[in-house]
């Protein structure tokens, strides 16, 4: 009976992780501008992979070998914001003048996906 309880906890955690990753991919697909898409991509990097690692930790009986996965997630939590920071810099330095275009979009209100509207 205890085995089935563990199975259902692991299944719930894995389905939660799948939901996080699916929402990240949905966000990347639906938003209109890169800066908004990076917000969505961060969900997968932080919560999704933590749920996967926690599920593995519980499934193998809480043991020290599976705790390596949690350390891996800890490492990823350090490196993912640095990557996002650099991607933001790439976008910032390769676009002509972001605040001007964002303001222009709001004034015109043409609803298109240009000028930073999403």
């Amino acid at each position, binding site marked *: 009976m205890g085995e089935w309880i563990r199975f259902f906890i692991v299944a719930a955690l894995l389905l939660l992780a799948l939901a996080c990753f699916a929402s990240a991919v949905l966000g990347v697909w639906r938003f209109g501008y890169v800066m908004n898409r990076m917000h969505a991509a961060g969900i997968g990097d932080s919560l999704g992979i933590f749920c996967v690692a926690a599920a593995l930790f519980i499934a193998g009986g809480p043991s020290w070998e599976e705790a390596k996965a949690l350390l891996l997630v800890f*490492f990823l939590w*350090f*490196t993912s*914001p*640095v990557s996002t*920071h650099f991607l933001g810099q790439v976008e910032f330095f*390769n*676009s*002509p*003048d972001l605040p*001007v*275009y964002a303001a222009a979009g709001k004034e015109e209100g043409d609803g298109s996906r*240009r000028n930073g509207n999403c």
Partner: protein
Amino acid sequence: MKEKFWRWLDGSREYLEDASDMDETPYREREEVKTQIRERNDSLDKRRGTRAVIRAEEKGFRLLYSWVAVISAIFLIGVLLYVVSYLPRYGQENPQTTLVARRYLEDGVRETGAINAVAGMILDYRAFDTLGESHVLFTALVCVMILLEKDRKNMRRGYEDYYRITGEGFYTPNRDGIMQAAGFVLLPSILLFGIYILLNGQNGPGGGFSGGTVLGSGLIIFTMAFGFDTVDRIASRRLLKGVTVVALGFYSFAKGYVFFTGANGLESHIPKGTPGAILSGGLILPLDIAVGLVVACTMFGFYSLFRRGSIGGKGKACSGKKAGTGAGTKAEGKDNA
């Protein structure tokens, strides 16, 4: 139509295609400096009459080069085809696939002392191939150095201003505050993890090549976080050269000794140890370390060459700062002469 395809493939960098207020002054300045220098060099060359001599020499050399290239390629193709004709036919029962594989898997632990069968294969049974591979890595690094390194022959005298603008000072990796904070925490773990993979080559997945890759990546992250000046104090040109040469020399001599004793039926007294411990597997551990160091130096050397054109800080050519001060004196000297 074609232009649109290439622009789609590269990814657009301008946000709007008709963006008109992009700041183009740095590009224009650089182009102006380039055209000025090119015109000055052309006038100087025309005065000295060197162009005709250079063109004649190049034509003769190019003819000789093409003939030698074609002949050596045909020779190499002939030799390889001759060797291939000795292989067994496709689909035939041959000892390679039945007997050899079985022996590697079944007697591998007993004969080499390594649990990881792949490490036992590449560093014990087939160590000659790995010797060639390490030398290939070293040769690749030397070739990239020949092509990309800035030395006095390809830093033409008139171009110092150009090199000062687009040289080391501009392309130094930015000392980013966020990157430094992350590197402060992560780098010890990354380098330690690389050493862990190197040492456990015979007990689990890992070995020389992957451990060296992780070490090289750690050095690259270190460079991006703290700048080239800091790294040059640790991984200077002398250190990289010395480490590569010593590692490859040690590999050649150690494995040469084993080949010699094995071919003549003598007993090479290298202890095998107990499988599963760190100091086991005979020569596999030292050779792993040698290969890992070569790979790490190669990876860092490639990054350094592509980024700023020289491996150590003070290469054979003038670095960015020196060119800045050298440009003034050299240009004045040339104008006077």
